């Protein structure tokens, strides 16, 4: 960029050239400044402030510098490990289930089955609902005594499930609501990608083989690899941030059974007013997500080049 500018500058001569250069710089800055300000105000500053806070302890009368003590404490904090375990489990299950189910549905709909338009419209409705509303809806659906799911189970002679009062079932409940909300997103993106696969390519492949499996694995999947990768990384990042659903459905309980890392940051920072320690959890979470993203792009990156 600077080379180009210099080259252009040298084209002019004397005061006129300097003036043109200045005008060019001014224009360049006026176009880039909003972006730079935006990035500084909403990305760099919060990040720097979070890093600064993570080195502080919040007591009566304000913060004091404690170095890396917050990070050392994390290693022996069972709450942090419990939230980390829960979050990683949640990410793994939620991403796998939404991607598999969404892709299978997209493949089915892409075959042109009757009523797909109606199905497509209906299936994306949960995506437009606020997660907090879905959480409250889940509260009704998973209600243990007289909730619709347990009523159906009772009608077929099965025992009621302690959806929200048992730790493992509570995790299943928040996963179910999350999968319900995010599967349509995967479905829509994968369907759009499938519809961009050239029909003649598929027809040519079908002439070569009578089985649809090789067509799917050798033609279709390689061609939708890019959009699928985008979906997976977006889902991973979104699942790492899970907060609204456990917040509304279980309050993170029973005990700590459904308390995610973001929930832990919220409770530690805003409820318990321990901003320094909350910031250190947030920093670790950021590093984790970055590591996952880097590993993902290392193995998937060639698709985007």
């Amino acid at each position, binding site marked *: 960029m600077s080379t180009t500018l210099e080259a252009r500058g040298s084209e002019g001569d004397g005061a006129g050239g300097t003036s043109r250069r200045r005008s060019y710089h001014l224009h360049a800055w006026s176009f880039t400044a909003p972006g730079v300000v935006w990035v500084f105000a909403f990305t760099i500053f919060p990040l720097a402030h979070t890093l600064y806070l993570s080195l502080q302890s919040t007591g*009566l009368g304000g913060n004091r510098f404690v170095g890396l003590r917050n990070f050392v404490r994390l290693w022996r904090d069972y709450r942090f490990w419990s939230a980390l375990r829960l979050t990683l489990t949640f990410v793994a299950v939620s991403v796998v289930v939404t991607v598999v189910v969404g892709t299978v549905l997209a493949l089915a709909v892409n075959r042109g089955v009757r009523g797909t338009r109606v199905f497509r419209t209906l299936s994306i409705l949960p995506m437009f609902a606020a997660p907090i509303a879905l959480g409250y809806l889940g509260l009704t659906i998973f209600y243990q005594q007289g909730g619709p799911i347990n009523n159906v189970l009772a009608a077929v002679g099965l025992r009621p499930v302690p959806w929200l009062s*048992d730790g493992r079932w509570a995790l299943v409940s928040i996963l179910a609501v999350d999968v319900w909300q995010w599967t349509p997103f995967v479905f829509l993106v994968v369907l759009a990608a499938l519809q961009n696969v050239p029909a003649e390519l598929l027809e040519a492949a079908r002439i070569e083989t009578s089985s649809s499996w090789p067509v799917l694995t050798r033609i279709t999947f390689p061609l939708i690899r890019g959009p699928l990768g985008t979906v997976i990384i977006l889902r991973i990042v979104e699942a790492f941030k899970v907060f609204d659903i456990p917040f509304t459905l279980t309050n993170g309980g029973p005990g700590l*059974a459904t308390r995610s890392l973001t929930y832990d940051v919220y409770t530690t920072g805003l409820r318990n007013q*321990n901003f320094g320690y909350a910031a250190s959890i947030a920093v670790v979470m950021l590093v984790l997500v970055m590591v996952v993203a880097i590993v993902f792009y290392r193995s998937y990156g060639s698709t985007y080049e």
Partner: protein
Amino acid sequence: MAKRCSTYAVLAGFLLVGTAGVSQAAASMDELEKSTADKAFAAAAKGKPNPAWKGQTFTIATLAAGPRGAISGPLYFWKPYFEKLTGATYRVVEIAFGDMQAKIETDFASGAGQYDAVVGGQFMMGDYVANDWIIPIDKYLNDPSYPKMDLDSIAPAYKALDRWGDHWYAFNNDHDGMILYYRRDLFNDKKWQDQFQAKYKYALPNPPKTWQQLLDVASFFNSVEWNGPGKEHQGISLHLKVGEQGFFDFLSIAAPYVVSTPGGNPKKVTRFHNVFWFDPTDMKPLVNTAPFVKALETEIALYKAGSSAQLSWALGEAWNAFLGGQAAMCYSFGDVTPLAESAANSVIKGKVAASPTPGSTEVWDFQSKKWVKASGANLVGNVDGASWSGVISRKAKNPDLVAYFLAWQGTPEINHWNTTWGFTGINPGTKYDFFAPFGTAKVEDYVNAGYDRQDAIDYVNAYQKQDFEYPLQLPYLRIPGTPAYLESLDVHISEALSGHVSAQEALNRIASDWDEITDRLGRDKQVKFYREAIGYTGG
């Protein structure tokens, strides 16, 4: 077809008549509510509202429960009266219970000044005062321009919550405390009395006097079909959902095992007596000691005498199980009888007995570290709950106007009216709420608001006994950081109840968390605040 039509017509007729009956009854209750409120408004002290307040608006943050819900309900209800009285008005900002600390303390700490007043939980008082976020209200209490509250009528335990050191900070409003509610019809039924006697070898206690008796009774009613064949029949209903107010259940159980008298003046606070939370000399948590373990083990057993869903029940669900006739007992705040008398889903009006929470036959002596037999039962009253009361933010734009409103709500007429009408969530705790000869209220005050006479008597007397006659009281935690201490308590009690860890392990985790919080906030400062809060002066 004709038969089907006529059947539909008859059904529709029943529905119409039924609906008309219900709406007539509702209309007459609405009229009664309005006319009694008008009378209370007319009789309440009004001071001299400043004409300059006309057209002004202030903001009150409070519990999210809607226009007819607990605590926020009366703020909406009295708004037109206040507008008529002063020409000023206010906005109500509703905040969910679990978000109150986060939103209010963030507003105060950041100096945003979004809220001029908070009708909030008294457990935030330590943070308010330590950080100088609210103003003392002493100057308004004897100023004739402001409506006069009857401060002498307030039960001592609640009065202490409104004050810090030598100053008043909160206006009289709500008086929370847990009491026991139980089904009078079941306890008086000879069939159940005989079966209980046969099984437990002592008479069905009416009411249960100790937590062990309560556990026996709950287990008994959980095991017999007292509600008819095939129907839900729980011994007890508890609100144990984490992030709500379940930890108060544990505190009520622990109180008589932990709080003891030094003899002589029963209320004297020493290092080992009338203490509950911490050792007042060094803030070492007491929560993982033997009496707390016993209390938590009792609560775990009690939880098993009810629905397993209790772990996901907030207040509403637990109360509904009792109001809907599925649970034989419930111990909770003062909203249960008022709801039993007025809620549409209540099937137990006229059957709700009440008593103070039970005691224990032994109490832990922290000095000798041994159990000591209590003479009779060790009875410890409690003011568990939020006791929602109004405070004024230091950033309030017009603190005088806010003070006028909160003082007016605390006058005996308005406050007592709120107590008698169930939807308000305001619970009794003043002499004008209690019956003669102790107080000045009449049973008719409650009967006129839709109560069954005996239910009203049992309910009001249970509070009067607990507030004024119980020799000891569970000290209320309200030092800086209280929300953080309580959050830890809440989460780990839930862990023990869900079987994730043992009672001792859960309590050890709480003690460890509490030490961390105390160190973070400054142990020396916390010792000072704690001593002030419980009235410990040494010894």
